[in-house]
């Protein structure tokens, strides 16, 4: 299971952030807050799930 640990950790963080989003929306309608959290979530997905840094890897490394 070792290879999958990061992925599962990130999913947990994403889940927590989603719940936080939901509760923030109950108290405030702030576009900025919610979009910031969304950007953070998107950043996590892009970095850890989509491996954006492989773009800069000269070798076909995984």
């Amino acid at each position, binding site marked *: 299971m070792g*290879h*999958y640990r990061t*992925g*599962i950790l*990130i*999913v947990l963080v*994403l*889940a927590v952030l*989603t719940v936080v*989003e*939901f509760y*923030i*929306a109950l108290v405030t*309608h702030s*576009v900025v807050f*919610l*979009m910031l*959290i*969304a950007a953070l*979530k*998107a950043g996590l*997905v*892009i970095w*850890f*799930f*989509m*491996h*954006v840094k*492989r*773009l*800069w*890897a*000269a*070798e*076909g490394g*995984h």
Partner: protein
Amino acid sequence: MAASTTPMKAAGHAGAHDDAHAPTETYAERLRLNRLGMWLFFISEAFLFGALLAARFYLWGDTRPDLDQVVGLIVTSVLLLSSASMYIADTAAEHGQWRVFSVAAWITMILGLVFLFGVMIFEWGLFPSIYKAHLTPWDSKYGAVVFAMTGMHAFHVITGIALIFIMWNLARKRRFTPERHWGVEASAIYWHYVDVVWIFFYPALYLIGSVVHLTGH
């Protein structure tokens, strides 16, 4: 064209001396090109979804329709879980664990379908016998934007599921190795991308703005 190296990363290229100068490109070079192409495609698509978000903020401003919050949270979670299973599938392919890959790919496809049907049943109201949705695309700007945004997203979900199915089938025929599985990687990052889009769509549709109760339906 001839073999290539970018000057920015020339140092990292030192290892691939074998046939780097032959007119045909190596797998590593093709992989770089494929990856770049895929990411350029993502950038391009970002503007597509960005335009939809812009339309949403332009038309709705600080209001939103009264969408079912439970449905929103559930479909969002389902898509998130599917991203997790896709991550497992991708990592499994990297390590040659094809059984894990196959199971995880199927979980992803099923979760994707659950998401799709969730939207179709509860937001679009395609099956009124199960659930009567109150929005239609033609009654107001609220329905119009919801349908435009979820519709465009659903289109990407469908293509994503199709891609994963094709990759599962190719993997079944042993077309991939831990070293060479660009197809799996591409469908995985595509699937995650669809998730990223929803990460922005979810607050835009369900959370931001104060609820407007539509009258006369």
